[in-house]
């Protein structure tokens, strides 16, 4: 009896399940309300928090830079291409914003190569890429923790004869709003114009 009961209802049950699944899927694949160029990461990641040192050698936390839209980027100063290109692009993006919006956004460049990147070296490096950028670094465990928090990692290659080595790191730019909530993940292949559009929207949203 029981098996017959279940057999008769299998069709109904599976039809219902398929319907629920497809509803769930359309919910997931639905477009965001706003037209972001970057990937919307609201709710996917924890809010901005870190415990690092800045390029003056002072220890800083996420609260020290609150109130502004922040772009978090991992890299190292000996980086041959990815970092300079990205930082150059971000500098162009911010300096292309309306003058009153420019101070509302800050780039946080986190060096994951603390062995070579001393605060002094970091200061010299970030100064080259404009005013609205801060260089940060820390001890390796601190950096590992931050990377893990934002689901990324970094690694070191074997040093060559001159002691130079490559560092693998995330190429993404993590964007946080004024309250420190994670909002967007920018791939490095986005154009400056696309990034600027998203940043302007984020800055104007909170004011």
């Amino acid at each position: 009896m029981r098996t017959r009961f279940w057999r008769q209802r299998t069709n109904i049950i599976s039809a219902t399940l398929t319907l629920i699944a497809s509803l769930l899927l359309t919910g997931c694949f639905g477009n965001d309300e706003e037209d972001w160029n970057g990937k919307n990461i609201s709710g996917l990641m924890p809010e901005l928090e870190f415990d690092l040192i800045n390029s003056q050698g002072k220890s800083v936390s996420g609260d020290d830079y609150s109130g502004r839209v922040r772009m978090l980027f991992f890299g190292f100063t000996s980086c041959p291409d990815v970092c300079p290109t990205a930082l150059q692009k971000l500098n162009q993006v911010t300096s292309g914003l309306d003058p009153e919006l420019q101070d509302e956004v800050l780039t946080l460049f986190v060096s994951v190569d603390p062995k070579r990147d001393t605060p002094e070296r970091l200061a010299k490096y970030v100064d080259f890429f404009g005013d609205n950028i801060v260089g940060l670094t820390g001890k390796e465990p601190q950096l590992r923790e931050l990377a893990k928090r934002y689901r990324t990692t970094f690694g070191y290659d074997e040093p060559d004869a001159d002691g130079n080595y490559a560092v693998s790191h995330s190429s993404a730019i993590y964007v946080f709003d004024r309250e420190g909530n994670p909002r967007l993940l920018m791939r490095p292949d986005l154009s400056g114009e696309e990034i600027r559009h998203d940043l302007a929207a984020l800055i104007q949203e909170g004011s």
Partner: protein
Amino acid sequence: MSLLDYLLPYDFSPLTVLSYMLVMGFYGVGLIRMPDQDRPGSLRIFAFTLGVLICYAVMQTRFDYYAQYMFFVHRGQHLILHHIGPILIALSNPLPVLRFWFEKIRPGWRRALRPLGWVYQVLQQPFIALFLFVGLIYFWLWPSIHFDAMLSRELYWVMNWSMLLDGLLFWWLIFDPRPPAITSSLGYGRRMLVLAAAGVLQMFLGAWIVFSRDMVYDVYEVCGRAWPLDPEVDQLLGGMLTYIPPAMMSILGILLMLRRAMHQDGKYTNQSKQLEETAS
């Protein structure tokens, strides 16, 4: 890095560790306390322990770090959570231990647990089981969903646990040791059909990943790899792990079912004939 760093979890999940400890604890205590004639043999105990241990290892050791930052290691992780681990556990037939503990539950509690049994029966309808088994693989490998799952810690845990629990349900349905002729377990023909369908559907997905010329899963590109492996090689290896071993496991499952069906062929029909003869 020391050996301890490799054995300790990358992302410690107390709930996961606790669940595994409870499973092994109940299994061990059940084994010691149960009557000798019910106790599974040492090979079965070994298969069960190995199945649980490899699932634990891919979730709560350094392996998980590589699974988070390498596509092909991630595919290996799901191969263990959704296939190999649950297959070992199902083949070890932990039913006597479950029965031992079930009999210890007070009748009032058993009544309260009954809705759980109904849910279980719905999930074990062959069509639903197949839909869930293949659907979950497609769902978590859907590029945009996969991207989110690798970015969000919560989604990542939901993904891994859903794969493990569904793997256990599916392979228990397939390898249920109770003969379908005299119990309510699924008939061998249907088990083989479900396995064949699951195999073919997984091959479609695996082949699609293997033969994709573009980067389908670029989250590993965006968030950095555990070591600098060529992205195309990573995707190819991951695709092959989705393509070949699951298909082989479907075929092995079908062979096992054929063997069981042939062994039991006529066994129960002859028995019932004999019963009829003695009755008349």
